């Protein structure tokens, strides 16, 4: 019976998963690389010709593309790096000092926002930011000027939506990380007279720096691929003022039928994602 445990065919159970991954993941990625170098269009049966780097050259010369890159950077920086990451860390830290019912209440609400389906979250934040929506109602009540957020600051509105939706992940990561810091260390620092902010800066943050790194990486990666939230809230508009790269890609490939161009954009997005993934794997020093 030892034959069942040795030899190449003990790897046979890997086959179904590998076939699926090759067909539906590696396949499209390869196809993506190919299409990005052609002038494939949805309209007309003229087929596709190899055009080399034309799509990429065109992208870098395209104001709309540059606008999408800029908005993607803003969106990622505001919602992932500052928003989800910092708010998640703050929440996790505050929860350690807060009383139990408050902790449970906040945790439940933040996690509920995370578990809700993407499109429901988009719909809720859409109503929240609309001119007739809740945010303006609160501002009116406080006698502050209200405005049509989805029109005046669309990229900020979708960024806040992404914070609302995604902070739970950071909160959970940081809660786990903070709970692993031995009490004695913070207590010792306290006895030595280190103030709150100094304790956080010199002791807490360095001790959880690995979690900070992985969290930043994962937040950035998930934010890079946000599509439904933005599409449902603003369709990338008004004009192109909330058109991040995924929305731009969709717009070019489907609404303008430029599959080749849209795919080139997708490939760039994939490359950025891959870079982040590789850094992430390095940072993790994965043991497998």
């Amino acid at each position, binding site marked *: 019976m030892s034959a069942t445990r040795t030899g190449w065919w003990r790897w046979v159970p890997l086959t179904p998963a590998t076939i699926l991954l090759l067909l539906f993941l590696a396949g499209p990625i390869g196809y993506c690389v190919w299409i990005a170098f052609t002038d494939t269009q949805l309209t007309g049966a003229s087929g596709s010709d190899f055009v080399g780097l034309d799509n990429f050259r065109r992208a870098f010369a395209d104001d709309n593309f540059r606008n999408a890159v800029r908005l993607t950077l803003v969106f990622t920086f505001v919602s992932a790096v500052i928003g989800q990451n910092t708010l998640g860390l703050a929440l996790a830290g505050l929860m350690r000092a*807060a009383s139990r019912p408050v902790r449970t209440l906040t945790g439940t609400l933040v996690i509920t926002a995370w578990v809700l389906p993407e499109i429901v979250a988009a719909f809720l934040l859409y109503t929240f930011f609309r001119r007739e929506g809740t945010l303006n109602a609160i501002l009116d009540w406080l006698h502050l000027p209200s405005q049509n957020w989805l029109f005046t600051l669309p990229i900020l509105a979708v960024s806040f939506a992404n914070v609302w939706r995604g902070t739970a992940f950071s909160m959970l990561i940081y809660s786990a990380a903070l709970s692993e810091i031995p009490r004695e260390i913070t207590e010792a620092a306290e006895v030595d007279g280190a103030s709150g902010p100094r304790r956080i800066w010199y002791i807490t943050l360095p001790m959880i720096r690995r979690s900070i790194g992985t969290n930043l990486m994962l937040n950035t990666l998930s934010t890079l691929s946000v599509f439904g939230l933005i599409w449902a809230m603003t369709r990338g508009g008004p004009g192109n003022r909330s058109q991040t790269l995924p929305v731009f890609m969709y717009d070019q490939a489907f609404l303008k039928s430029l599959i080749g161009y849209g795919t080139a954009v*997708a490939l760039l997005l994939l490359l950025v994602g891959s870079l982040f993934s590789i850094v992430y794997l390095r940072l993790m020093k994965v043991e497998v």
Partner: protein
Amino acid sequence: MRRTTRARLTANGALLLTAAAFALPLVWLLLASVNAEADLRVRVPSSVTAENYDAVLTDEITFTPMLNSLLLCGGSTLLTVVCAAFAAYPLSRHRSRFSRPYLLTILFTTCLPITAIMVPVYGLFVQVNLIDTTYGTGLFLATSQLPFAIWLMKNFMDGVPVVLEEAAWTDGATSLQTLTRVVLPLMGPGLTVVTIYTFIQLWGNFFVPFMLLLSPEQLPASVSIFTFFGNYGSVIYGQLAAFSILYSVPVLLLYILIARRLGGGFALGGAVKG
């Protein structure tokens, strides 16, 4: 002592403020769903009504899309979990020079922005006639969840001691029998987590069915709700809120099920600890 009390009060205050900000859109959802005259603001309804729910509980609005979601996501989840369990077994049990690169590739794929490949996937699906088919969409959805599912599954499987399998082997069991009769039953909670987590992810997925399914009668709830509120202006917000709740409840319940069982950080065990 007084300092800790003050710190506690400050922390409670800050958290309650954040909680309120997170709660507002959710409160709107709950109140609007029972308000016959719901608009876009948080407002306590003058009278609570089930009108909105009655109006959306029809075949066209609720039952067909929810059934589509169930078939699409249930089928994909099943496929993901079965494939992931098989794949995780040799990866967890055997060492070879190719298991490490395989796992690293899997982990690498986990992080890729899947959104980016939807355009080529659409192109491929058109060419091989899988476009607008539930099973084609299901196959892609299943694959998109596979890397993370394999990774989670492998980590859970590592927790099952090999000794028990060796006993089964001595009794003459094959690898398949050992996997299904010994290993999988022993990792029940892990298997539940992978299954429910996959299902939650798929249930909420919007972009994939939005791209790959075209016929209205095949659309899952994530896309049908979008077409419902996509036509801004003519929307009855109360009904949309009611439908949103009906669509969200299954995943919220499932989440509670696994969160209770394994603590809040369940999903992170695989992704973050390595």
